[in-house]
């Protein structure tokens, strides 16, 4: 009868391991198979002291409370803020079981987090798309104060970059035009100048990317 217990256990384990194996294969690439494992776990924009400018989390399982989110931001900030190279290039690190790519522009710190099996090159392209789009939207004036003054644009840009963890768009020029075009139709006189500028920069950026 031990045999039966034993074989039952091993059957069960076998099933589990099959499930795990499948999961693993899927997770390995961080495939968008399950909502439980979105590609991007969060996007953070923090200031030079690690305070929030704008953040968006796509995984409530990892960070169920605001406290957990703030703790995560604190860790991420304290472990990365000395990386000067992040001003020149997209940098990358692992914290716990997360891969985090980041880029600093002036006093703004941009982060994109994925789980450890994530393809970091994809995360980097999401980050690149996002912060370059922000650059276009803020007319090259990427700094905290400007970002807060145009927080609506930043939030819209976040919304256009990722939907529930899935990358929606990674091309900065397209992203910026999607955010900016909303206001274009409105014809609100006050915003026209801003938008004309934004579009000009967008056009410039497209040309640049074509010439690359």
């Amino acid at each position: 009868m031990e045999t039966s217990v034993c074989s039952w256990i091993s059957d069960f384990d076998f099933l589990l391991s099959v499930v795990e194996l499948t999961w693993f294969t899927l997770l390995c690439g961080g495939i968008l198979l399950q909502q439980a494992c979105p590609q991007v776990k969060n996007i953070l924009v923090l200031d030079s002291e690690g305070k929030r400018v704008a953040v968006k989390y796509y995984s409530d399982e990892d960070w169920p409370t605001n406290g957990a989110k703030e703790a995560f931001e604190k860790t991420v900030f304290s472990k990365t803020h000395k990386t000067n190279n992040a001003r020149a290039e997209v940098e990358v690190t692992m914290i716990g079981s997360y891969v985090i790519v980041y880029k600093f522009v002036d006093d703004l710190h941009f982060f994109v987090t994925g789980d450890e099996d994530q393809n970091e090159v994809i995360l980097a392209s999401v980050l690149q798309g996002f912060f370059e789009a922000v650059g276009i939207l803020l007319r090259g004036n990427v700094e905290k104060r400007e970002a807060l003054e145009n927080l609506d644009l930043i939030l819209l840009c976040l919304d256009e970059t990722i939907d529930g963890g899935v990358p929606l768009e990674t091309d900065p020029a397209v992203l910026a035009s999607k955010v900016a075009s909303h206001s274009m139709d409105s014809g609100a006189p006050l915003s026209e100048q801003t938008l004309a500028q934004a579009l000009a920069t967008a056009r410039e950026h497209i040309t640049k990317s074509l010439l690359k």
Partner: protein
Amino acid sequence: MAQPLVKKDDDRDDEAEYSPFMGIEKGAVLQEARVFNDPQLDPRRCSQVITKLLYLLNQGETFTKVEATEVFFAVTKLFQSKDVGLRRMLYLMIKELSPSADEVIIVTSSLMKDMNSKTDMYRANAIRVLCRITDGVLLTQIERYLKQAIVDKNPVVASAALVSGIHLLQTNPEVVKRWSNEVQEAVQSRAALVQFHALALLHQIRQNDRLAVSKLVTSLTRGTVRSPLAQCLLIRYTSQSASNSQGGDRPFYDFLEGCLRHKAEMVIFEAARAITELSGVTSRELTPAITVLQLFLSSSKPVLRFAAVRTLNKVAMTHPMAVTNCNIDMESLISDQNRSIATLAITTLLKTGNESSVDRLMKQITNFMSDIADEFKIVVVEAIRSLCLKFPLKYRSLMNFLSNILREEGGFEYKKAIVDSIVILIRDIPDAKENGLLHLCEFIEDCEFTYLSTQILHFLGIEGPKTSDPSKYIRYIYNRVHLENATVRAAAVSTLAKFGAMVDALKPRIFVLLRRCLFDSDDEVRDRATLYLNTLGGDGEVVETDKGVKEFLFGALDIPLVNLETSLRNYEASEDAFDINSVPKEVKSQPLAEKKAPGKKQPTGLGAPPAAPPTTVDAYERLLSSIPELASLGKPFKSSAPTELTEAETEYAVNVVKHIYDRHVVFQYNCTNTIPEQQLEEVSVVVDSSDAEEFGFVLSKPLRSLPYDSPGQTFVVFEKPEGVPAVGKFSNTLKFIVKEVDPNTGEADEDGVDDEYQLEELEVVSADYMQKVGISNFRNAWESLDADLERVDEYGLGPRESLAEAVNAVISLLGMQPCEGTEAVPSNSRSHTCLLSGVFIGNTRVLARLQFGLTGPKEVAMKLAVRSDDIAVSDAIHEIVASG
């Protein structure tokens, strides 16, 4: 639209900390939200207020239910405005508020109107919002529009619908699955991201249909995929279906290899990684992937270097030889600015390095260690530890490296990792012992961590006396008595006593030192000194230490501290002295997380034991002793975990707990009646023991009454030969009288009907006769048992899914406690040693050493060595395995 928030330019210089949201307050903003109700909407101002609300939410502010509802109703008014910017903020706000079902109805029609608007941006965003907040009923109403949207010519609209589909598949799979034709069409889209989203959704719809996935993959690998992201997905699906299809040849390998020449880096990396992760990948298949990763190692982009070194680090675990080509590039990464990359490079090199390169590597690492963070240092220390175990001949330079970094600055976790490593090296490499012990001695001369000092002193007490010249350690130990805090002093006194007990030549000198300790300012130190002087006979002649004293000094306390604590709490001061044997030895909590640190269980209060959940053993004991018929049986040897005898959600839920006594077995049936309209009476379990010959029925104790939802117990007692691990199968039938209960009054009818209910069988297995009893130091315990009472045999365990699975199966078959964390099998390992300990019925201590190895593909063989106080028990353990 930024202007309204901008303060005048000249303010900027005055206030460095200026923020447009300074002094913002929830109450005030909620007041401001009233502008949404104005008959003449001001879009600019409304947008501003929404931004402020979103800012508050973003900063972690929460709205109460009432506030959220109010805001929601207010913002719905904004649908009247034609302003596109405002509409967009409105969408964002609705998503953030995640309205309840009855609130959703209010915005549904507005959003559906937007979904069919002429403005593409409206359509895309309305789809995303609606899908985010919708429920199943509403979804069927909008399904038609969504299907159209998927094949919309505007890519933004199509993507919005597809991504929404990905999310909706979690909640409403049956609806989304009906869209596969449209999604299939979208996969062929010319727009890159539409293709990506469509592929993700299509695969997700069909993920359970391997054939369909395989077809999809085949057709796409031949066609053109425009988006790099979609190409990455395709690579994942390909390698996934390749791993599903059994057999040697991999039809998709060529596709993966082709992707290594793609122009997008993300695709190249994805493909390289997929190849390295193929199960049973050959070195020929690996080569092209390693080559591109090697190129990435010298990329200017940190992300690529990181990705490559991270992947190669994993490959190094299974195919160290394949990675050696990259060693030169890897070595230059040791000085990489990015410390994550540098650490990964070092640990990879340590994995792939051969014996001759160790010295050179250590030199490079020494320069590197000073400027990385502690957490990276710990990774390096662990890698060095395993390297040293791999090349024991190199212990000298590795040990020197460890002792050097031990002297440098560092936090507790880092120092602990180093000390643990040295301890492990001392244990596993006999040559390294004296050298290592001296390094530890030097470390405690200047150690700021009390925990580490006491651990090392304890370890010295065990290992020091066995060295060729024990006297040279005494100075270091006695220095502690002068220089340290009370905790360390007490530990030092214990260590001195151990030297005294083991080395007779040192005894007189030790006594002198111990006598000095009698004047210590701390009472624990004085008490210990007194105790040891007495047990070692320090006040009289120098005599040889007897066995009892040695056992007292060196024996591990093999009782879980939690149990000891409970017993001591329950102990009432009386004439009878406290009997340590009355403490249950069953381990209830998880094994201690800490495994390698020596002397964990020394009862000095160091290293506080983890809080354990309250033990159920006491509860059972109290229950059993409250029933006269059962109390007479004595104290149960072991109580099993409950086993369910009914399926979930049946009328009556029954589980059984097996209490094992020396001569009896008691089955405790925990019954719950889940039918409110019934009351059960005279509940008993009729047990058929015809398949359990060695057991004889003694008595059954029925349960008088079992009302709805209040669990009750009934017991059945069997007798069995004393001390014998009898096994058997028992079939069970629940017998009772059912009485209807009036739902209004809650009173039961007078008359009842006899009824029966079939339960599942229960088994008494060998593991039931084994208590899980952990020990702190397996090696010492193993050596303390007579080697003549050892039984060794080899077993073929047949094909197994994995090594870990085989290890777990044997552990649960034997029902013993894994020691020192050996139940965890590192992935990819080809062999594993597992240490188990337990107490067998009749209070016989049993230790088992299990060595597992893979003999063929998935074939597992096991060598089992058992030691116990009784040779018959050792044989019994082998029998259990042989028959299991």
